């Protein structure tokens, strides 16, 4: 009889005291790897072209990003050649002031190492790129990176 009585005993609670430790470990991992998106996109996320001969962009703090693509808001037109600087749709003429603003955030010694990353939709036209390039030359922002995905195969 006593055998059956024993079986009625409650299950011991599972010890979950190490659960927070595991979760914290994951949490720290994600906290360390996170880079917060610095600006809201006013254009559709550009579909970047792919290339194989690419270089990684180092030192995120020295990178200023220019987006080129199709504006989300239809009032700016439906072409793929809208330029976004600092949350706003802009024209190539606004590029110099954007660069000066970015330069204000870094120390003077690091200005020559600043890179402008152009995230451009693959259907945008080279004309827009050339306009931006001309403005960048005007203000001596000479390091440029044409943002692409890394892939081994050739795609148009």
């Amino acid at each position: 009889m006593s055998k059956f009585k024993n079986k009625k005993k409650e299950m011991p609670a599972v010890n979950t005291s190490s659960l927070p430790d595991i979760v914290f470990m994951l949490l720290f991992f994600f906290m360390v790897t996170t880079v917060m998106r610095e600006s809201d996109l006013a254009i559709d996320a550009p579909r970047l072209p792919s290339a194989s001969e690419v270089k990684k962009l180092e030192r995120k703090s020295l990178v200023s990003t220019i987006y080129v693509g199709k504006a989300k808001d239809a009032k700016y037109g439906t072409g793929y050649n809208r330029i976004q600087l600092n949350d706003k749709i802009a024209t190539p003429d606004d590029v110099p002031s954007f660069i000066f603003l970015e330069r204000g955030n870094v120390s003077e010694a690091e200005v020559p190492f600043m890179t402008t990353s152009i995230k451009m939709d693959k259907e945008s036209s080279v004309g827009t790129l050339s306009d931006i390039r001309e403005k960048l030359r005007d203000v001596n922002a000479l390091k440029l990176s044409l943002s692409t995905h890394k892939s081994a195969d050739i795609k148009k």
Partner: protein
Amino acid sequence: MARRENPEINAGSMADIAFLLLIFFLVTTTMDVDSGIPKKLAEKSDVVPPIVKEKNIFQVIINRNNQLFVEDEGMELKDLKDAAVKFIDNGGGVGNPMPGKDAGASCNYCKGAKDPASSDHPNKAIISVESDRGTEFGMYVAVQNELLKAYAELRNKLCQQKYGMSFTELDKSFTAGARKDDALRKKVEDIKASYPQIISDSEPTNVQ
């Protein structure tokens, strides 16, 4: 005096709090690494560019319909790399003086055809990319990529022959050592000077 034991603190909700934070960071994290094709723009100056002999220019034209023309003839994108390699590595004459030398010499590492009608020396060979304002950016990048591939191939080959490893590996180990190793720096600079990347972007045309 009766010794009272400290009651245990209930930490059951700690996991919940940590989960909340974890989920926030999981959602905001983007894992992509920014990468891109590096370009260096020319400084604005009044200096008149030196006149370059026609045979030292490799003309690549992309028209507004994304068609490729190389030296005035149509070409498929897949053939561009080999054509560029052939042009750069031709070594048909005397090049510009290498750093630290007074006079230019002919290219002693070129494996090309030594065609007198093609480029003199890798450091004189200029690749000129001309595109239309209406050319798609995707096509432009693809062309730039093929040209960079041509240089990478030549550099790797020369580096393998001289130092027994590819330029990609050499550059990687140089970068891994925080660019401090002088012996490696010499090798990297030597290879880079042997095949300098001279890709010029001319102003896009505007054909309506």
